[in-house]
Structures are given as structure tokens and as C-alpha cells.
């Protein structure tokens, strides 16, 4: 029976997370930045699932009817829910901005400073 150390998943998630952050830092297009944030969320999701699996395995060894790990997967579900809502609002804001300044370049957002 093949087993994969949970570390691999952690590293994968962390890597995706880091990439997402780098994206947020490097890009200037608001939409892309938003997408990178979505990427970060997905990294979290995969991590949660991995953990849920991990804990489940640990608990299952003792009790065959255990439901340990469910909560994490449900949490992922809620994250997706929230993400969906966020996307609605976020895109609405971006569109509104585009209506006004015909650009989504965040570098032009510096009316407010100091």
C-alpha cells in the first residue's frame, strides 16, 4: 500500500502559497493579483485536505467508524463559498474602477498616500 508523507503535501501547499504571494507582489494588474490570491486560497485548501486525511488515518487506526477529518473538508467547502462571494464583490469593485479610470493597473492607485 503506497503511502505519501504528509510533508510532501505541506511543501506543495507552501510552495503554491509562496508563488501566490510572489504573484501578488510582482503583478500590477488588479485582476491577476486577485487570481494569485485565489491561488493562495487553493494552497490552503489542499493543505487542509491533506491534514484532514492525516488526522483521519491516525484516528482510524483506533476506531473504524471515526469521522475525524470531516471538519477540515467542510472547512474547505466553506472557503470555496466565501471565495465565491469574494469574487463577486471583488470583480464588481474592479469593474467599477475600470469604469472610472479605464485601467486596472494598481500603480495608478496613488491618489491616497502620506
Amino acid at each position, binding site marked *: 500500500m503506497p503511502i505519501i508523507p504528509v510533508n510532501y503535501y*505541506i511543501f506543495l501547499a507552501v*510552495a*503554491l502559497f509562496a508563488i501566490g504571494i510572489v504573484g501578488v*507582489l510582482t503583478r500590477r*494588474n488588479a485582476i491577476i493579483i486577485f487570481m494569485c490570491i485565489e491561488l493562495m486560497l487553493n494552497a490552503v485548501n489542499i493543505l487542509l*485536505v491533506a491534514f*484532514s*486525511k492525516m488526522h483521519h488515518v491516525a484516528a482510524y487506526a483506533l476506531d473504524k467508524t471515526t469521522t475525524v*477529518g470531516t471538519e477540515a473538508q467542510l472547512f474547505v467547502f466553506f472557503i470555496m463559498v466565501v471565495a465565491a462571494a469574494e469574487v463577486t464583490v471583488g470583480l464588481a469593485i474592479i469593474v467599477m474602477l475600470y469604469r472610472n479610470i479605464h485601467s486596472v493597473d494598481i500603480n495608478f492607485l496613488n491618489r491616497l498616500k502620506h
Partner: protein
Amino acid sequence: MHITEILFWMLTALALFSALMVVSSDNPVHSVLWLILVFIAITGHYILMNAQFLAIVNMIVYAGAIMVLFLFVIMFMNLNKESEPQKSVWLRLAAVVSGGSLLLILVAALKDNTGYINSMKGEGSIGLIKNLGKTLFTEYVVPFEISSILFLSAMVGAVVLGKKENSSPAA
């Protein structure tokens, strides 16, 4: 090397590569497509970990609905061809360095972490829709209901922002 491991490595490689492409590709449309690829890879991982429900939801909600939304907006703003201006080299360098060091630190902190996962038809299939649904509507009914408030507010928000200008306050 077992088939699942091979799958794991393939999916991981795919996810990371396309994630990098998301960040690096100039054309927004391309990034969107790459992002969809990332989601697909992640879905694969879900299946590997025997979380079918999430796999499906991820596929439908994310890769499907959300990314379409993104694509739509981008098209709507027809940003598709113009490649956005880059930030200064130094800023990007700083970004990469900090992101890298973050990764480094986390890995360094977590490398000697125990615990393992056996994949595919793992024990007690908690990832099945049936089980999840049961818990969702028993223990987790409250958050589920509450998240409706979230949607309501998102909806109202979208209305508030999207509605055309009207001088008179009352609707």
C-alpha cells in the same frame, strides 16, 4: 514506484509549473488558462486523497464558475492582448527573494514533521458526498445557514456597486 506516487509527482509538477506560469505570463488571458490548469491539478490531488466531493466542487466552482467569471471580466475590459507594464526589476527581485525566503523558512521549520497519508481507497471514506452532507446538515448547519448571510451581503454589495448612477437617493 507505485502508480499513485507517479500520479502524485506528475500532478505536483503540473500544479507548480502552471502556478509559476500564472504569475509570470504577460497576457492575462494566459494566466487565467494556466490558473485553470492549476485547479485541475489540485482536483487531481483531491481525488488522490479520496476527497471526491471537494474534487467535484473544486472543478465546478473554481475551474468552472469562478474562472469563467474572471475570463469574462478580462474579455470585457479587453485586456487580453495588451501586455501589462512590469514593475521595476528591483521590486520584482525583492518580491521573489521574500517569497523564496518565506518558502525556505516554512520548509525549514516543517521538514522534520511526522505523519503520512495513504491514498486512493483509503479507510473510512469521509470524503464521500454522503458522509460530508450528513455532517454538514447536522453539526455544521449553523455555519451553513450563516454563510447565507454572507451571500446576501455579497449580493447586495454587487447590486450597490453595479447599479447605474441614480441621483435620487430612494430606489
